């Protein structure tokens, strides 16, 4: 019952009018920056840091946390409406969310994204409260070999992402892996494919690639095909999801939440991996996988839940171990340090109002986000009626501002434009960009972990099968391969026989 008392204590802290106000400000700002691509929670929290000097630590943390998870909500909005991923984690939502919007189902897509996120946020919050410290211990069991095996499994499973032509999908994965190589090598510090351009020495930004191939590429393609655009604004059906939509989404939301929580606990996995994993699972378990990529509601419900669960669970390593899993978490630790609080394992006992107040506020924040977002859907959908001659330039301008703000670099805007052209060519060639992005995300991390594992084992590859967790992932990877290859082999036999 201690947990119950703690939670009540937390709610008492979070429901004070100041803290409620900070929570409200946080999630509103978060939603706003989530909508804009590029301008992410990192830059926003950094800018607001001085303001928190004069705020009580609990209030400061509540507000900053609100910005962070609010951005996950907002990120999906533009992904669904105009194929523009507002945040890294919303990239996967583009795939089916945007197709739903094109079919006049932007309302249900937005609503399901909000509902899924709320459910995931609730579960994530509970998880931190109930099992934070043991989960953090679990995360420590993951070393380089485990991360590598996990990511190898993800990459093999990526074949599931393939739509239509398998060869094209594999080529796109390879393309992503190659793009991911650009930049400074972690182990030796050597520059790869940066051609002496300083801006490329830290690699190509994910948001640059994503906005380029999704948003810009799509706009260019649409300009060449004005007929198509007209279709999707004229038939906007109901705003809220139907009973059938909800029924279809329940399981994906639950699965997405579970997947997101798993990846969230592991500090060595970046954003977007959880959403990709959830999408692949949904496509695999679906009765009719061919609906994916054409506006399947499961393809929105699962990944949106996963990315919110991931965002919530990223607090676990920070709150229980004082370790930042990302730049955002590092800034929150900084905010606490400025207040004279040493973040770490003893925060829970020495500053219970901070720990439990934050947890309670996260749940309140998630509820606020649903309340804020559901009535907004009608307004968002009306945005689609804006004529394209106004909408397109606006999207381009927002994208440019957002991307510029990440590193104050005009080079990245040119790079986005280049990826826009490449994205257009891919659309014309019928190559889906999703497998490319997965390769782009996983490639550099896989390489980093592989080489670190080899360094630590002095070049002995058996580490991948002698460590139990790693072995488990390797076995699953092998099983996935068998399951994928078996039908093909059988088909060939039938072909030969026939």
């Amino acid at each position, binding site marked *: 019952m201690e947990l119950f008392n703690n939670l009540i204590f937390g709610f008492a802290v979070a429901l004070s009018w100041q803290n409620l106000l900070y929570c409200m400000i946080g999630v509103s*700002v978060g939603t706003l*920056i989530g909508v*804009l691509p590029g*301008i992410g929670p*990192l*830059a*926003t*929290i*950094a*800018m*607001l*840091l*001085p303001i928190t*000097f004069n705020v009580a630590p609990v209030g400061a943390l509540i507000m900053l946390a609100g910005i962070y998870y609010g951005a996950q909500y907002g990120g999906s909005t533009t992904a669904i409406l105009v194929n523009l991923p507002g945040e890294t984690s919303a990239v996967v939502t583009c795939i089916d969310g945007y197709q739903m919007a094109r079919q006049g189902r932007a309302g249900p897509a937005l609503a399901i994204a909000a509902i899924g996120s709320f459910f995931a946020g609730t579960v994530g919050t509970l998880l931190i409260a109930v099992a934070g410290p043991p989960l953090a211990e679990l*995360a*420590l*069991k993951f*070393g*380089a070999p485990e991360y590598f095996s996990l990511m190898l499994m993800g990459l093999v499973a990526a074949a599931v992402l393939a739509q239509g032509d398998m060869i094209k999908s594999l080529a796109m994965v390879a393309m992503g892996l190659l793009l991911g190589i650009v930049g*400074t090598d*972690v*182990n*030796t*510090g*050597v520059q790869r494919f940066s051609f002496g351009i*300083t*801006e490329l*020495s*830290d690699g190509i930004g994910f948001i640059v690639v994503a906005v380029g191939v999704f948003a810009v590429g799509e706009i260019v393609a649409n300009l060449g095909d004005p007929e198509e655009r007209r279709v999707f604004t004229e038939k906007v059906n109901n705003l809220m999801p139907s009973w059938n939509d909800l029924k279809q989404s329940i399981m994906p939301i639950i699965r997405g939440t579970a997947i997101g929580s798993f990846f969230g606990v592991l*500090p*060595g996995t970046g954003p977007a991996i959880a959403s990709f994993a959830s999408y692949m699972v949904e496509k695999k378990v679906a009765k009719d996988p061919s609906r994916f990529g054409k506006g399947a509601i499961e393809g929105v419900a699962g990944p949106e839940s996963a990315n919110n669960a991931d965002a919530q669970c990223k607090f676990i*390593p920070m709150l229980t*171990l*004082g*370790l930042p*899993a990302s*730049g*955002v*978490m*590092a*800034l929150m630790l*900084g905010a606490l*340090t*400025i*207040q*004279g*609080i*040493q*973040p*770490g*394992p*003893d925060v829970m006992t020495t500053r219970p109002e901070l720990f439990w107040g934050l947890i309670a506020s996260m749940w309140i924040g998630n509820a606020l986000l649903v309340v804020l977002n559901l009535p907004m859907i009608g307004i968002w959908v009306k945005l689609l009626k804006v004529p394209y001659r106004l909408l397109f330039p606006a999207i381009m301008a927002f994208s440019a*501002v957002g991307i510029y*703000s990440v*590193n*104050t670099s005009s080079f990245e805007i040119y790079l986005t434009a280049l990826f826009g052209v490449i994205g257009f060519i891919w659309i014309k060639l019928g190559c889906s960009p999703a497998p490319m992005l997965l390769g782009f995300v996983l490639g550099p991390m896989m390489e*980093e972990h592989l080489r*670190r594992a080899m*360094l*630590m084992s002095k070049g002995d590859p058996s580490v991948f099968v002698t460590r139990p967790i790693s072995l488990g992932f390797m076995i699953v990877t092998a099983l996935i391969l068998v399951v994928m290859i078996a039908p093909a082999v059988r088909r060939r036999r039938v072909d030969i026989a026939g």
Partner: protein
Amino acid sequence: MLTKRSLLLTAAGLLVALTTSVAAQSDYPNRPVRLIIPFPPGGSNDVVGRVIAQHLGEALGKQVIVDNRSGAGGVVGTEVAAHAQPDGYTILGISLAHAVNPWLYKLPYDPIKAFAPVGIMGKGPVVLSVHPGLPVHSVKELLALAKQKPGDLQYASAGVGSFQHLSAELFKLTAGVDILHVPFKGGGPAMIDVMGGHTKVMFSSLVQTTPNIKSGKLRALGVGSTERSKILPDIPTIAEAGVPGYASENWWGIVAPAGTPAPIIAKLHEALTKAQASPEAQKYFDTEGATIVSMSSEEFGRFMVSEMNKWEQVVKKGGIKAE
């Protein structure tokens, strides 16, 4: 908030281009000052810079805006500052990396001649710690183990050329031992790995490490400062624990582009001294296990040169390369 910032930045840029540096000396500052931090938000450079910037602004009477220009280990942002108008409206927050980068990268600027030193903000030592499963309880035992099996022990660092990496290489050179370097992308991931017992030894900034030392998840063997740290008084310095002469501390300071008028430098130095005395700065440095340091602008200039010479030896003898 955001648009306001970008507007201000654009406006500041335009003004820099239009005004001559002579015009605005006596009434300096009459518009916001830009503090370039050549690292992304979230790291110690950024947070130290922001804490100081807030109070620097109060002391100057005009806002000091932090502008993160990260990339290439700090080279990108430093280059921007090196080529900015020397009118006091662009200043740069630097750290130890500034004295190390000349030996790692081909720089598009001269790290000493392109800048006029303003002052140092503070110093924070490195801490040497091990996973509790490793059967060593002191620096001497660690040295014995490393000598017993050369190249078998591994240490985690925040990346090639990082403060943590250099501190470890300095340790290896001074003590004459061989410990294998395992680089990570940042101090956080490195620490998680050591806490999990995958890599066993770590050199990290005291800042991040203290809570896990106190909770027993890491065992601290020594600190890199010349005196014991106030927040971990039981931990000896590495020098007293068996590696005489060893000292490795990160530092943060402010410089302006070379040619910035002396009265403006003096005004900035005075404001920096006031900012260092603010309760937020005190609290932040205390909690971090760092110390606020005061030097005159000239002293800081000499300090930078001595740091460059010190780390040149480490980079060259340790065979560290980034290009």
